[in-house]
């Protein structure tokens, strides 16, 4: 099944031509209408006329996360505010938030992208989609929502949280599709079992669309076995709009709609990698109006597959996200920056200066974050309760800042590793 067969099966040669035309229009557009890109092009010595086709894409400068923060709130916009119909924003991790604006057409393009994707992973009119991604400033909930309605499916906008109710509604309203993070799906399956409900036998759920955090084939298998459903991967970031792309039923890569986005893979120096090699995914939006992005560095490490897919779609696929290019950690679907953790620890006088962040994936598939911190020698009393209170205090402070809980292990001063130069304080034992 295709949502838009003409577009989805466009011959690869024609897709390239569409990309060239749209790219050329885009560089002219942002040069004239985006103060940010005009400045950026001038600094790089680039004239819009220099970009004659896809071969010149690599001449264009990258756009990175700090650009969004530095130009908060409207500096990246290429449209007047009167044309903006919606904002989404992500919480500021180092102070300022980032904001993304959408024109009416941007929303339409986003919905089109998700309609194609949902259809590609077999969602259809008869389905009831229970959306357990957060609604609000986060793009997950609404991204699924409008596409679900457009498809003619029934949308159940439960948003995140309240697991008991999620399960009851899933059973009573006969949800067939569930959208959430993979770790939440694992948690929900366990929870359901603990209250005597089998997702497989007691509900109509047949599939789930999971994303917003890196996950593995092993996790897919675990979810599928545990809940008796098909599990599909979804990709998208708020900067690019929100959730945009999913796997097709081949479960062999996520289709990136090439008439809307140009995907590249670059190495650490920003140079294009060879065919089939892994690197950072870089995306240029060629169909966005309000806040087009040129060579947006997603920070996600993956491989690009340009061969036509067995499903018949000609659009390239990205393989499973293998990790993050920068320091950002994704813990249970929540973005965590080591700098935030350091900041919290620095506010606690009893905590020493040295710390380690250890990430594990527990048997149930949930991420477990452990923060080891040295106790400050001066603060050591001989009471167990004092130390337990200290770990609890740090743990509570971390939870309130990070929105995800952490285990705190207080250790002896001098026992944690010291670093010269760039500290490697993160040990990620999760096998993604």
């Amino acid at each position: 099944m295709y949502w838009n067969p003409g577009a989805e099966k466009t011959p690869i040669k024609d897709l390239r031509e569409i990309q060239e035309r749209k790219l050329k229009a885009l560089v002219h557009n942002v040069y004239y209408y985006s103060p940010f890109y005009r400045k950026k092009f001038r600094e790089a010595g680039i004239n819009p006329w220099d970009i004659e086709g896809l071969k010149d894409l690599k001449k264009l400068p990258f756009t990175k996360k700090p650009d969004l923060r530095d130009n908060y709130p409207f500096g990246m916009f290429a449209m007047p505010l009167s044309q903006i119909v919606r904002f989404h924003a992500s919480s500021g991790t180092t102070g300022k938030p980032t904001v993304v604006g959408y024109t009416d057409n941007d929303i339409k393009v986003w919905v089109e992208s998700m309609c194609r994707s949902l259809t590609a992973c077999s969602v259809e009119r008869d389905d009831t989609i229970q959306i357990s991604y957060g609604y609000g400033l986060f793009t997950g909930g609404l991204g699924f929502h409008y596409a679900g309605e457009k498809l003619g499916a029934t949308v159940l906008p439960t948003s995140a949280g309240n697991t008991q109710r999620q399960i009851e509604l899933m059973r009573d309203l006969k949800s067939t599709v569930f959208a959430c993070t993979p770790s939440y799906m694992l948690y929900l399956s366990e929870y359901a079992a603990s209250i005597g409900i089998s997702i497989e036998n007691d509900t109509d759920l047949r599939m789930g669309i999971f994303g917003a955090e890196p996950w593995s084939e092993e996790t897919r298998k675990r979810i599928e076995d545990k809940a008796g459903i098909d599990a599909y991967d979804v990709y998208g970031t708020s900067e690019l709009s929100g959730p945009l792309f999913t796997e097709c039923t081949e479960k062999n890569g996520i289709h990136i709609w090439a008439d809307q986005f140009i995907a590249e893979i670059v190495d650490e120096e920003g140079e294009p990698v060879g065919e089939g090699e892994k690197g950072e995914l870089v995306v240029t939006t060629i169909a966005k109006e309000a806040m087009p992005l040129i060579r947006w560095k997603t920070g996600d490490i993956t491989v690009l597959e340009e061969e036509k897919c067995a499903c018949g779609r000609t659009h390239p696929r990205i393989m499973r996200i293998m990790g993050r290019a920068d320091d950002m950690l994704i813990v249970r679907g929540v973005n965590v920056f080591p700098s935030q953790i350091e900041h919290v620890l620095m506010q606690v006088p009893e905590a020493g200066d040295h710390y380690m962040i250890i990430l594990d994936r527990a048997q149930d598939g949930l991420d477990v974050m452990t923060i080891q911190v040295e106790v400050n020698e001066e603060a050591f009393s001989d009471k167990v309760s004092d130390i337990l209170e200290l770990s609890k205090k740090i743990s509570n402070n971390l939870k309130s800042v990070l929105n995800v809980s952490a285990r705190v292990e207080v250790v002896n001063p001098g026992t944690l590793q010291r670093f010269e130069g760039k500290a490697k304080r993160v040990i990620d034992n999760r096998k993604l």
Partner: protein
Amino acid sequence: MDEKIIKQVSIFVENKPGRLAAVTEILYRAKINIRAFTIAEAGDFGIIRMVVDKTDDAHRLLKENGFTVSLTRVLGVEVEDEPGGMFKIAKALGNEGINIEYVYAFTSGVERAMIILRVDDIEKATDVLEKEGVLFKGEVP
């Protein structure tokens, strides 16, 4: 009054193999004798509390070897090794509203038990126990 108060050595140890051995080896090599010893264990870590014959030496040596050590003022009480010995003390302190934060005991020699107490008000506890006529060990010789 201070001579009635014992300085206990408290050591923070992570709950890892070999930590206890490391602590006791340091003391053994310095010929420091352990008179009373207990570990309060809480999952990832524990606190070793002990009364030794050469407190200051033990404190210094452990610190030099990278341990987190503190000296804690505790009371040492000697009672008859018979039923009711601990009760007598706990009741006397309780009646005066003194909170016992922790206590550990061991028998020493014939028919005597030594009790180490950490209380929230050590001065008041000293008075109370003195009136009770229990024997203070003071600084362990």
